[in-house]
């Protein structure tokens, strides 16, 4: 066996190499996640990788005026806090100055004598004391420019925006409306067909199997024009809209069937013969055998196809934009995101949060059901669609 724990230089190099590759692979997604949690002004102002460290921002504030002065021992003082007020920021003042050109002239905590003889001291927490030998006469005090170092700020505001006012929430529901039936219906239809092709006596069985396997090669794009024409004709004929959820479910079912039947048939055909035969002797008909014996046994195959199909339908853009309308009641997440890329291309706070909403479901499915997913993938190298 290979040694798994040791501290040889080659092992360390190996670990570092893998770490490097993983960093490379997760960096783009990490960028998306971190950005989506940042303030929208921050996203446009600095790279997401700076979000974890505290950032220096230049700020300005105005000191209080005569109304707040206090006289003590013949000296007049005004005190307050730069962080209080309308555009208050939290953080820490690292330096300050009274000229816009030099906001970092004086370190926080040090006192400075101004041109008019007043003394100003700004502390790290934003508090300041301005003292003068004569009384203050101005309505409001002078301006102070300072550098505040802000701790990392994260917010869920972007998510609130996209979910409730950008229509992502609605598209999320549309996506579920498309995906759930488009996953269950093909499983059901394919499982019945696979059982029939594996265990039931019927003419042309070999031919049907060959045709179904042959259909694995048909590229999806090919079906679009003829189907769209068919849908339009059917829609006009029956006087219903041609773009319906039913239409998109059936389309996904049709496109997913060859792979589903192929995968399930080879699994169901591999079940022990005795099992089926003994059930037949007990007088069960094929419908009963299928429900009671076969269905529970082929759960792993059903699960791997279900995950495969779920991710495929959820992530699909082409079928959805061709067979579903682009109104808010039908636009799915991928379509919505694609539309946002065009219309809100510069609004990274919208794009990043929306993108994360669209990928959170597949990622959850993937991480929780990874085992089945990998199995489906191993079989799925033949999927054409």
């Amino acid at each position, binding site marked *: 066996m290979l040694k798994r724990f040791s501290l040889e230089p080659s092992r360390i190099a190996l670990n570092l190499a893998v770490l490097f590759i993983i960093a490379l692979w997760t960096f783009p997604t990490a960028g998306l996640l971190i950005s989506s949690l940042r303030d929208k002004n921050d996203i446009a102002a600095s790279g997401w990788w700076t979000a974890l460290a505290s950032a220096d921002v230049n700020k300005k504030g105005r000191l209080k005026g005569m109304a707040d002065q206090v006289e003590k021992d013949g000296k007049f003082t005004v005190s307050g806090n730069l962080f209080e007020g309308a555009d208050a920021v939290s953080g820490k003042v690292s330096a300050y100055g009274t000229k816009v050109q030099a906001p970092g002239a004086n370190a926080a905590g040090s006192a400075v004598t101004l041109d008019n003889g007043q003394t100003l001291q700004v502390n790290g927490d934003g508090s300041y004391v301005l003292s003068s030998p004569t009384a203050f006469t101005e309505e409001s005090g002078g301006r102070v420019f300072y550098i505040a170092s802000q701790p990392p700020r994260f917010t869920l505001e972007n998510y609130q925006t996209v979910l409730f006012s950008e229509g992502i929430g609605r598209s999320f529901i549309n996506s579920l409306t498309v995906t759930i039936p488009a996953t269950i219906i093909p499983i059901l239809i394919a499982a019945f067909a696979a059982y029939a092709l594996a265990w039931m006596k019927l003419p042309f069985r070999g031919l049907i199997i060959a045709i179904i396997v042959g259909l694995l090669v048909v590229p999806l794009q090919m079906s679009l*024009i003829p189907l769209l024409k068919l849908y339009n004709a059917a829609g006009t004929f029956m006087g219903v809209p041609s773009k319906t959820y039913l239409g998109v479910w059936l389309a996904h079912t049709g496109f997913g069937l060859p792979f589903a039947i192929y995968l399930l048939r080879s699994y169901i055909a591999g079940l022990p013969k005795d099992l089926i035969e003994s059930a037949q002797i007990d007088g069960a008909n094929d419908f009963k055998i299928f429900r009671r014996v076969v269905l529970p046994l082929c759960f792993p195959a059903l699960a791997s196809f279900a995950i495969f199909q779920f991710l495929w339908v959820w992530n699909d853009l082409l079928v959805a934009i061709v067979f579903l309308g682009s109104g808010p009641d039908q636009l799915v997440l991928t379509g919505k995101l694609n539309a946002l890329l065009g219309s809100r291309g510069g609004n990274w706070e919208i794009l990043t949060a929306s993108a994360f909403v669209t*990928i959170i479901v597949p990622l959850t499915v993937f991480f929780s059901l990874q085992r089945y997913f990998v199995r489906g993938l191993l079989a799925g190298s033949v999927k054409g669609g």
Partner: protein
Amino acid sequence: MTAQILYAFITVILGVGGCFGYFYGSNWLLDKTFPANANNDASAVRNLRIQANIRPWLFLGPALLLLTVYLIFPVIQTLWLSFHDRAGDKFVGFANYTWAFYDDQFRLSIFNNILWLAVVPALCTLMGLIIAVLTDRLWWGNLAKSLIFMPLAISFVGASVIWKFVYDYRGEGQQQIGILNAIVTYFGGDPQVWISLPFWNNFFLMAILVWIQTGFATVILAAALRGIPEDTLEAATIDGAGPFKIFYRIMVPQIYSTILVVWTTITVLVLKIFDIVLTMTNSQWNTSVLANLMFDWMFRGGGDFGRGAAIAIVIMVAVLPIMIWNIRQANAEQKGH
């Protein structure tokens, strides 16, 4: 929102329920019409035989119907359309194909597709192989593999947003928020508008697919590596072979057929690549590929079903031999086990 959820819920229940209803209903009807427990034996036997003849078609019916409507009919129809003019009325022979042959945009798309074919499958397989071998010897290898594998669960559109962010460009002197330009400017280079960079922009789009598909290659190749008998590796080690020699001489030959399957699977995917180009560049800046060209001719402005269909046929003809090879390979492997 609540109304929408309720509506969605009802739609889902109706759709799925209808499907269940068909199978239960049709089988129930069959059992009722030809009861197996009929009053005399002769009719019971007859009914059972009728049931056995009808039931397979009840099981197969929906699948055959859907396959016919959604795959067989479109293939025939597309073939037919590709020999007809833009509206599909007049037979034009091979005119659509000869048009494609001389069309600059088509040639560009073919060229780009070949570029993709040359780069993506090779790079994915190579990276997958390297990662599979490296992680095989780590105690946290499985975690590493899931992280590499993760992009596979992300939609192409989602991936495009992620990568647009990576490639984001700000004018010189401004702070770059795209990581690629940030790195370039950090080392003193000039920021670039990556996705409109002539010729090279293709490679930046390919990077996305490599990012997505390497996980697929890794997982499948890692499974194959597990299948290599331990004693062949041990024998090679005893004979004094170094790790690189073991890799080239022992590991690669033994998983050669799996490498080919991975390679061809990604090749098929690349031939049909569509979403990434649509969402990243929308075929602008000379990044068009066949599927996008077809889409434009069919649905956008082009409005020429004949030409679109001809391009679809070209894609299918290109995919066909590889898929056939793949399926035969998969069947051979199944028989072998």
